[in-house]
């Protein structure tokens, strides 16, 4: 799993969160928790996965 911090950009509606670097093209899932983007890579076990 790769952790990518968010970038916060002010918008008229509040703020927009974006990844501070591109999500890897071979990621298999991405989750943002408001602080970081977590990019799950091949072979990673996803949260909740048996």
């Amino acid at each position, binding site marked *: 799993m790769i952790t990518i911090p968010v970038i916060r950009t002010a918008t008229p509606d509040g703020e927009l969160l974006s990844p501070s670097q591109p999500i890897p093209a071979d990621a298999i899932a*991405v989750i943002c928790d408001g602080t970081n983007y977590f990019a799950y890579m091949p072979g990673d076990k996803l949260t909740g996965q048996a």
Partner: protein
Amino acid sequence: MMRAQSGVGFSGGGIGLKSAGVLAQSAVPASVTGTLSETTLATIAIPAGAMGVNGALRISTLWSYTNSANNKTLKIVLGGVQVQGITVTTSSAMNHIAVTRNRGAANSQITQFNSGAPFNVASQSNITTAVDTSQAQNLTITGTLANTGETITLEGYTVELLNP
């Protein structure tokens, strides 16, 4: 006989039909949870001039989200300008298609700004925008929660260029 191949126009049986071009596609789930801030779930680069003056972008999205009374806002933004905004509550998933069309100029678009199902009647007026598509632009797909304990997932998307 018409036959479509990736990147090759329809032969069109001599009548000049052209194929859509898939600019980007993914079925990798991208989720947001734990924040009330609008969160980018996908960014697609639209090359300069790729969308002709009478061209269009067809954006298909597949979503899942927490089924609750709280608003979940799903947006499509072209060049920093919102072209689609959908608010969902007590449902679990949605398959949506939005089409943004240039209106004879690279910097003039129209899109149905609907809050529900695509190709449906809408109480809102169509939205007109002035994004300069002769320049490279980003198309972003975002989600915004109203409850940090809930989740929005962009399950997949396809972005197609339609040029006459």
